[in-house]
């Protein structure tokens, strides 16, 4: 308690406020580098490749969905720099990626296979079985539902003196949920090595950020939990990477969580069941088309002569081929057997479930 006397301010407007660092940005909209490139040229190129993979994957899936060959899905178009940049700051050998549902590009960088990504969108349960020892939790449909788990995981790693950190991704809408609040608060208390990456893509379905919260930035919400919050340009791979890298270092150092707000935009649909033309102002969309993170990276790669146009075209072709192969493989995956799921409710199937499973099997047989 500060001991000085002090009358109540006559006007409370703005008496308290956030002192926030400026938005982190390395590339301007034209791909001009404003700060030192925070990674090697090879890494930059590799990051670009994965962003492109995410973009083309989503485009492909939207089109397959339109043909009735996929279930409702939520493309991450326009947000590839945010998720890939963050993933690049992790060490996939030690660090965990905890997704919501719109960060596939980042998950691809971390090691999630394209084939499973396709299977996710045909509604195959195997997509939720994060393969091998890949350090990743399954996709999460309940907004912010993964955050308490991410914090528990980070807390658990710290308690084991494991050097791993956890990247937990969620959206602007997620900040309104109690789960976000309770998780962030616990993370602060436990100094859990977790990075909360909030992809502020401007929309929660049709709900604008102003309808979502009166907070000027989402990053400043970290002040409520006693750890740093910082905004970065979410359409700038370097900005996201450099910011999350610092947050990862901090977490690994035992200093606790960071909230990183990646300011980006959902260039596609909320999901394939959504029609943004009902609510999205045209000009807003166009403004952000100009800020496309992929194009920005292309300009940078060219202008810095990291690659030439021909090389970019080659990468396009390679990505296209990868997707073709992965989709082919995905289609070869046998349909899941109902027993697949019955067997995974508990380790030891209960008598009631065994009875149900037998009924299923009987029905199938005849």
């Amino acid at each position, binding site marked *: 308690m500060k001991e000085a006397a002090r009358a109540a301010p006559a006007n409370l407007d703005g008496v308290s406020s956030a002192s926030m660092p400026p938005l982190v940005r390395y590339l301007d909209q034209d791909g001009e580098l404003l700060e030192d490139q925070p990674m090697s040229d090879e890494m930059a190129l590799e990051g670009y490749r994965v962003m492109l993979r995410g973009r083309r994957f989503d485009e492909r899936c939207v089109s397959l969905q339109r043909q009735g060959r996929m279930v409702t899905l939520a493309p991450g178009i326009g947000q590839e720099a945010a998720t890939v940049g963050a993933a690049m700051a992790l060490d996939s050998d030690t660090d965990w990626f905890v997704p919501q549902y719109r960060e596939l590009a980042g998950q691809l960088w971390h090691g999630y296979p394209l084939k499973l990504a396709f299977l996710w969108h045909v*509604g195959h*349960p195997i997509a939720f079985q994060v393969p091998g020892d890949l350090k990743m939790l399954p996709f999460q449909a309940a907004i912010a539902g993964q955050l308490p788990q991410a914090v528990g995981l980070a807390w658990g790693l710290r308690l084991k003196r494991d050097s791993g950190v956890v990247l937990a991704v969620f959206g602007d809408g997620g900040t309104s949920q109690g789960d976000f609040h309770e998780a962030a608060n616990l993370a602060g208390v436990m100094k859990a090595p977790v990075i909360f990456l909030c992809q502020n893509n401007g929309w929660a379905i049709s709900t604008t950020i102003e309808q979502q919260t009166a907070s000027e930035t989402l990053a400043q919400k970290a002040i409520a939990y006693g750890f740093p919050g910082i905004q970065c340009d979410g359409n700038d791979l370097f900005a996201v990477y450099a910011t999350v890298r610092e947050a990862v270092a901090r977490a690994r150092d035992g200093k606790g969580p960071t909230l990183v707000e990646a300011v980006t935009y959902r260039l596609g649909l909320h999901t394939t069941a959504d029609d943004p033309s009902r609510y999205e102002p045209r000009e807003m969309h166009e403004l952000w088309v100009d800020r496309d993170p992929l194009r920005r990276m292309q300009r940078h790669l060219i202008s810095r002569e990291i690659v030439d146009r021909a090389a970019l075209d080659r990468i396009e072709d390679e990505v296209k081929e990868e997707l073709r192969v992965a989709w082919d493989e995905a289609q070869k995956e046998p349909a899941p057997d*109902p027993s697949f799921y019955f067997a995974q409710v508990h380790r030891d199937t209960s008598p009631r479930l065994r009875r149900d*499973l037998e009924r299923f099997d009987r029905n199938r047989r005849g």
Partner: protein
Amino acid sequence: MAERTVVEAVNDALTLEMARDDRVLVFGEDVGVTGGVFRATEGLFTKYGKERVIDTPLSEGVIAGAAIGLAIAGWVPVAEIQFLGFAHNGFNQFVDQLARVRYRSAGRFSAQVTVRAPYGGGVRAPELHSDGFEAHFAHAPGLKVVAPSTPHDAKGLLLASIRDPDPVLYLEPLRGYRQVKGDVPDGDYVVELGKARIAREGTDVTLVAWSAAVQVALQAADDAQAQGISVEVIDLRTLVPLDVGTLTSSVTKTGRAVVVHEAPLTAGFGAEVVATIQEEAFFSLQAPVRRVASPDVPYPVQMLEEQYLPNAERVLQAIIATTRD
């Protein structure tokens, strides 16, 4: 009178009631400009403006909780939960607060609140979007639970729910939203809460269902008829309060009953129906009351969905089995 889908009937009721009673507020996630993810609130924002049709932040708990305060301030809130499964996020506000406003205040306050929520599976939605946990809300003293299956009842029951002086959870059958069509009177009418409907008369077996499962039940009843079994189908329409009388008189007549619901078997609302039937009509029963439900497995992803939900074939098997006991 016009042919309408269930979601159109819901929209019709909301439009009508907002015009009739200017205390009615509609709010929830994406109910405003875009008219709801299923278009149930379409057109309301344009008609009634941003003070009465409000997009809220993404929080089910505060949607239910704020409704209480709005009601105490004199408004008549009609809130939307985008998918029932997400009401779990604010479950305490539903069960411990909203349901108990009258009780907790020993009669000083009440909550004329309706919470609408589409629910149930069969529409190939992502995980958690198809969950059908009506039983969680049925076990919450003070809360009424309504679950129509037809456009006609959807409109009449929604109007009755909004006008009920106490909180009502109004469940909309996601699978029937656009699939089920039927005649809906144009003007104002209510279907009384707490009254089941005989959806089909029959003499051999009573089949009890609600919400989207009513269509499955009717299909199974048709199939049974083809095999010479006459099935009476009861559409509960309201789960709480339960229409014990209609259940009892039907089972007294038929002597046999089957209950069908989408939710997992254990502790599902079917158990309540069975327990009640055997309490009230035990000495008429010729056979155990059978339940046809989903297994005790969380709602699966899309590729396994069809095998998970009770279908007409499984219901038919249960009907046949019950006649053989």
